[in-house]
């Protein structure tokens, strides 16, 4: 009952004209960013963070805007998967498998609207899951001391590569690089400058917003320049969309699939390091095993469209649970959302629920509202979004670059930050070429200071005894999970990733011949 009244308070906060308008704007921009190949949810949120700041929005409105973008991007990813067979973002990869064949059979409209409904169901169930699960997790988190937090941060980094990671050394490298960047600046505990090399600009550290926008948005521009596929795509108009509304029978046919995969996706999202890509992959393979008796999956089975979409949207909601309750994000985009919180001077974690309930519940209410808006937007207005796919990257990418510059310049007004951002853009491009994941770098710059502070606090409390780090059953448990989470992908990672690629390849060859 307590939860419901908090939720009602949340709706009171979210239902103002300004917040509704922001949610609408966020959903719209998010869907577009998700739909455009090359601009995923993390990119989309990263580009818009500076905007939310420079607009001078308060904490709750900024969060409403940016999480709407997050949910919107998750919806939008499917559009290019279905119409172009190019996933708009990584989680939407599995939607290509059955979505594109459906489009080829002239049922693109049905596939789009059905996946819209599936996204809605997934996100809706996940938001309820968030409401029920997050407060429970908070109760556990309140037992954490500094030593446990240090172990928890290590766990987050160890599992961030995800089960599908191919090279754990590169994940570890990225995490250490990020944490190393966070240590630049004046030491918070003793006041000595570290790694500043006498440069005054570096005394207050490297702004993580600058790093995020550079790493994600600018490196994308460089990738496009390198391949100069400025004129790729733009054949969306060739596919006829067909009827827009799914028939009631079709919806009913797919309902059990959507419900099952929503639960599965949510669990995948909550688990550290899994994220939305794994959510959609697990959902698809699970449904295929369970209901694909006639072998229609991969040939345009509607359930094959519904399953990954419900799964990835549910995982997106699930990933918010550890981010809000523990302050430790489970996926790339939630890491970027964590940056928003930190920049707004909000420390996520167990205390957030007791000290700033208006932020939490306003956000959750906004998720519900955004979800309904997205459903309403995605079915009748789908034609508009398919038009957006016609904007060629040669026009789009310069706009992305310029908006990034505007955003960062708007915050600090200094050329130095812009130069640092370009530097991060180049770094991001090189690291992407080398297959080094960027998310651990971001998470490192975000959490590095908190991690160090907890370590030093724990050891100061124990009078310099380092054994305190493994001094409680809880921390030993977290350390063992971290070790398992780091070692497991070394054994299984290649197999899983190969299977994901393999399924995609199979699909491509079967559509060609």
């Amino acid at each position, binding site marked *: 009952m307590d939860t419901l009244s908090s939720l009602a308070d949340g709706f009171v906060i979210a239902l103002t004209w300004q917040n509704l308008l922001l949610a609408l704007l966020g959903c719209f921009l998010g869907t577009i960013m998700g739909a455009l190949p090359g601009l995923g949810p993390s990119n989309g949120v990263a580009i818009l963070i500076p905007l939310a700041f420079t607009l001078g929005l308060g904490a709750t409105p900024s969060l409403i805007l940016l999480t709407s973008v997050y949910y919107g991007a998750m919806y939008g990813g499917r559009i290019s998967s279905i119409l172009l067979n190019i996933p708009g973002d990584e989680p939407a990869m599995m939607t290509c498998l059955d979505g594109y064949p459906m489009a080829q059979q002239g049922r693109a409209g049905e596939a789009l609207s059905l996946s819209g409904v599936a996204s809605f169901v997934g996100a809706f169930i996940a938001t309820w899951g968030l409401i029920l699960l997050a407060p429970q997790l908070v109760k556990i988190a309140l037992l954490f001391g500094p030593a446990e937090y240090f172990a928890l941060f290590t766990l987050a980094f160890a599992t961030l590569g995800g089960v599908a990671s191919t090279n754990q050394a590169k994940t570890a*490298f990225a995490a250490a690089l990020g944490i190393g960047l966070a240590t630049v600046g004046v030491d918070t505990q003793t006041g000595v400058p570290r790694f500043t090399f006498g440069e005054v600009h570096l005394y207050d550290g490297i702004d993580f917003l600058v790093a995020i926008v550079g790493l994600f948005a600018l490196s994308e521009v460089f990738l496009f320049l390198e391949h100069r596929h400025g004129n790729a795509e733009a054949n969306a108009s060739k596919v006829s969309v067909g009827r827009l509304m799914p028939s009631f029978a079709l919806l009913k046919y797919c309902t059990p699939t959507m419900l099952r995969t929503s639960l599965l996706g949510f669990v995948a999202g909550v688990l550290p390091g899994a994220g939305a890509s794994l959510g959609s992959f697990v959902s698809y393979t699970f449904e295929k095993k369970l209901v694909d008796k006639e072998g229609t999956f991969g040939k345009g089975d509607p359930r094959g469209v519904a399953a990954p979409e419900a799964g990835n949207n549910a995982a997106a909601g699930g990933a918010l649970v550890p981010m809000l309750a523990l302050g430790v994000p489970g996926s790339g985009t939630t890491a970027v959302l964590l940056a928003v919180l930190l920049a707004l001077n909000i420390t996520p974690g167990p205390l957030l629920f007791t000290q700033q309930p208006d932020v939490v519940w306003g956000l959750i209410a906004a998720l519900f509202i955004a979800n309904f808006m997205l459903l309403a937007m995605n079915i009748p207005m789908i034609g508009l979004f398919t038009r957006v796919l016609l904007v060629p990257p040669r026009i789009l990418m310069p706009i992305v670059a310029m908006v990034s510059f505007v955003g960062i310049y708007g915050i600090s007004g200094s050329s130095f930050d812009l130069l640092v951002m370009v530097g991060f853009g180049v770094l991001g491009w090189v690291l992407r070429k080398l297959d080094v994941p960027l998310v651990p770098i971001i998470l490192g710059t975000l959490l590095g200071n908190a991690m160090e502070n907890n370590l030093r606090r724990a050891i100061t409390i124990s009078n310099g005894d380092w054994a305190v780090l493994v001094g409680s059953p809880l921390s030993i448990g977290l350390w063992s999970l971290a070790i398992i989470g780091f070692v497991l992908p070394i054994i299984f990672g290649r197999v899983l990733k190969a299977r994901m690629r393999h399924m995609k390849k199979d699909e491509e060859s079967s559509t060609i011949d």
Partner: protein
Amino acid sequence: MSDRIFGAVGLFLALGYAWAALIIEESFLSDAVGPKAFPLIIAAVLGLASLAIFLKPDAAPEWPSLPRLLEVALAVLAMILYAILLPEAGFILATAVAASYLTWRLGSAPIGSVLIGCLTSVGIYAVFHLVLGLSLAKGPFGF
């Protein structure tokens, strides 16, 4: 081969980072851990990861040919110039030039790209400055 070079660079980075951590001047008032210990742990992780990458490299990525590499380098140069000249030249002028350059290099026709660049610049100025009230760089002409 790429990964070997990458691992070696990473190792040097780790060593340099550890060295920079060791020369941090400690203040006389310090906690039990001090400002050096955590960076040294991170340097160790960085070094070990680099060593692993060096010893067990992945297949090399497909590096762009020299002209494409030059393309990226020129774009970086354009962005650096943009960052430095933005406060001098003002937002509209600098952005129009930079956006024209980028869209031209991504494959627009020369005349078209000037048009697209100007439209991008004016569009962003209208949305961000006139509608949203963001303060953008003021040049000699006041915009």
